[in-house]
């Protein structure tokens, strides 16, 4: 976004400097500490759930990931539905957006919001409004990485 600076007129650049004086700065350190705290707690809860599935439901370390993620998604759905997750998000920032619960919140909040436009066009059409780019870029990046690696393996390089 800062590349736009180069296209600004001198008058605009002068205003930019003046405006920045008054612009409340984001509390970066405070936000990072909160993100660390909230993100760490969510991952710790995830760890507890993983052990829960390993010891009580006979999943292994490798396979416990699936029900763990599904459970976290479910919990985030409840928190989103009860109107709690947006407050966690305002406090924790990336700490609540980066874990998979953030992905769930993005999907669920969009679904809940667009119920007023009906189930098909509203919910169905908008459910991936926020989370869609994560899926698209994840899949495409994985495609490129896996393709390159497979080709390299086939050529005997790796």
């Amino acid at each position: 976004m800062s590349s736009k600076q180069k296209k600004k007129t001198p008058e605009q650049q002068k205003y930019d400097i003046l405006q920045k004086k008054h612009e409340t700065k984001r509390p970066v350190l405070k936000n990072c500490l909160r993100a660390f705290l909230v993100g760490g707690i969510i991952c710790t809860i995830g760890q507890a759930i993983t052990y829960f599935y390993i010891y009580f439901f006979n999943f292994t370390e490798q396979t416990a990931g699936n029900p763990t993620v599904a459970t976290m998604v479910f919990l985030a759905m409840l928190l989103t539905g009860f109107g709690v997750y947006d407050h966690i998000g305002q406090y924790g920032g990336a700490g609540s957006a980066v874990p998979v619960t953030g992905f769930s919140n993005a999907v669920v909040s969009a679904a809940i919001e667009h119920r007023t436009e009906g189930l098909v066009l509203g919910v169905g059409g908008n459910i991936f409004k926020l989370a869609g780019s994560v899926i698209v870029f994840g899949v495409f990046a994985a495609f490129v990485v896996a393709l390159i690696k497979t080709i390299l393996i086939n050529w005997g390089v790796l």
Partner: protein
Amino acid sequence: MLMGKQSWVFQNKPVIAATGVTGGPFEANGKLAADFDILHDDLWIDEDSYEKAHRVLIEEACETVLKKANLQEEDIHFFIAGDLINQITPTSFSARTNQIPYFGIFGACSTSMEGLALASFMIDHGGAKNIITGSGSHNAAAERQFRYPTEYGGQKPPTAQWTVTGAGFALVKENDGTDENCPVTVSATIGKVVDMGLTDPFNMGGAMAPAATDTILAHFKDLNLDASYYDLIVTGDLGEIGRNTSYELLTNAGVKMDKEKYQDCGLLIYKEDQPVNSGASGSGCSAAVLYGHLLNQMKKGKYKRILVVATGALLSPMSFQQGESIPCIAHAVSIEMP
């Protein structure tokens, strides 16, 4: 009558004879709750979508105006209004309800003064005898259109503002001497679009400050006035950052005025402890604060002459995604107690 380059003087002094102001739960907990006619305790107002609730806020404000003025919809010649929602549907649907010949206008958060300026001009030149004008906004409807679903855990920066859920409407009519203790509109300055290249949709105040400054300076120049003429110069929704920035711009341009005289509706409406970051915004902000609190203060004698400068950011979610900056505009109307 045209005065200077972009201003009008209303020689027949159209009267703001009645007002109606509605609000939502946040506003009910705010500083100016006593100046609202109707306050709701939830955002749905018994409707099944936020946009429909938005429409209800506008309808109730208009009904209140008619009741106070002891008039019917049939007595009103024109309805000049708009809001922030795509294609201004809440306002248009309220026009469907009130069946008054309708000018739908869009100035983002400057809509209220755009409407008041146009209404005053029409009344002043005999184009109508009674006009209802104003604007409304709805926090959740604006959030879901411009930003994110309301339950999304996105983190707002401290420069963000809170869209007012509320509407303010007024009856502007011919000055025939029958309306006692009612304020009159004296002049208006129509703003031009000012874009200083800011791109952050979470910092509207910083983007709009130059537009407010431009219009205020144009107003003083066209009408050959200075800040000392007014008891209060109040902007629509510049918020903390916009107010401080525009105050510095005005001071640099030679305007001499105490900071106390230069207020912002977005900073007046809510209490310090409400989580609104740098202040309130929305097309309903300036309308609700002006047509409720400020006019009440004028009637009590606190202010004799005020200049209301409503500011708007003319962006859309798509323009932002396309890498555009944020063009802004400000319209000013001066109101006096006779």
